[in-house]
């Protein structure tokens, strides 16, 4: 996936459902998710349609209805999302996140080794005293 599409709460819930079953119809998705949330079959249908247009689902027509299956796996989607969100951090001004370690500011191997050596030495010194 080159870039990550916007996903709403319901879209994520439906995607999760499709990932578990591999192939679903609007009716089965509505029975599983829609009724619990109090939303209509039409809403579920349009959500599936949106996910299809976002290239996240495939579909085939069976009789009068479509059957949807995942086009991207959960792992692929999560990886794309991590790339977007973590990649944006700092580079784009509006990401309101505070990362424990920013990938862009990781020191090179030598600098890391030097710091680790310092840490080891301090531990040894403390152990010896």
């Amino acid at each position, binding site marked *: 996936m080159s870039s*990550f599409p*916007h*996903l*709403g*709460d319901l879209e*994520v*819930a439906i995607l*999760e459902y499709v990932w578990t079953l591999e192939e679903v119809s609007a009716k089965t998705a509505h029975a599983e998710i829609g009724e619990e949330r109090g939303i209509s079959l039409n809403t579920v249908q349009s959500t599936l349609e949106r996910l299809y247009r976002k290239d996240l689902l495939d579909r085939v027509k069976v009789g009068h209805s479509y059957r949807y299956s995942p086009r991207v796996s*959960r*792992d692929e*989607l*999560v*990886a794309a*999302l*991590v*790339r*977007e*969100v*973590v*990649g*944006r*951090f*700092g*580079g*784009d*001004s*509006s*990401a*309101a*996140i*505070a*990362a*424990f*370690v*920013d*990938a*862009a*500011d*990781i*020191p090179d*191997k030598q*600098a*890391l080794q030097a*710091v*680790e050596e*310092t*840490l080891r030495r*301090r*531990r040894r010194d403390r152990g010896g005293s």
Partner: protein
Amino acid sequence: MNAWLTVLWIFLLALPVGWVVSALAAGMLARLPLDQRLDPAARIRRVYLVALLPWAAPLVFLLALAAPAAAKPLGLIADHCLSHGIGHPHLCLEHLPAVALAHWHWLVLLLAAIWFGLMAIRHTMVRRRADSQLRTMACLAQGRGRLRVLESPDCVAFAADPGRPFVLISRGLLERLGPRERRIVLAHETTHLRHRDPAQSRWLECLLLAHWPSGAARLRRAWHQAVEERADDSVATRFGAEHVARTIVEVARATAGRDVPALSAAGADTLRRVERLLSIRAPVSPPPVYEVVYGTALAALACVIAGSHHAIETLLGVLM
């Protein structure tokens, strides 16, 4: 009516002029390195003050220009307007200037307003997109409280606030860390939430909209560094500075080993954080000299502008 429009134009002109001057000043202030020995909270305060400058100074310009106009009816200053020529622009609400404005006069203000409006719209759209992605990430992660675990082999941990604050940590990172290191990472991120750092970051970004990009990047970086160090300090009091330093190095190693994108121009300097934790110096809490100088400088600026009332009128007369 035209005379009132002229007065309005003159007062509104104070905003872009004040902005240009203060954005330049803020850019220069942002170039000055913040003393790293200072308490992170003091550094955060200083970043905010500099970030605020291009917003505060135009208002100071406007108020300082308006002050003599307001002081005349109250009898606080002598009325000298009638000594001016008829075509002289007055910063006065009693003797309105008989200066006709050309279309380009308004065009200047309109272009300034459009430019700022476009910047604000772009900022809002980018922020909404980022929030949407963070919310999606929170939905895809396990857990519905403040702690979310993302099933991903990548090594990421962060605190975010796309409307509802949460801490997200990836499974990949959890598996790389020992129990104590996990607690340190989580405590660090929870400290960000306690200080409302992700939400504060939004306010900072709004303030930085009025800065030149280079100055904004410097301030953003200084802010992130100070915020991370404040969280480090907080966690170090519980777990010990060395343990926190070791955890940072461990997470840096884990992150470096993976293909995580790295575009940041504003994140915190990891090595500096570690070195700071390992140094035995206690951070210095400075007296509020910086804040007092800042406030005094703004007050002095207001006095100079208000005192230069006549000179500004003359300058406007030449320009118009």
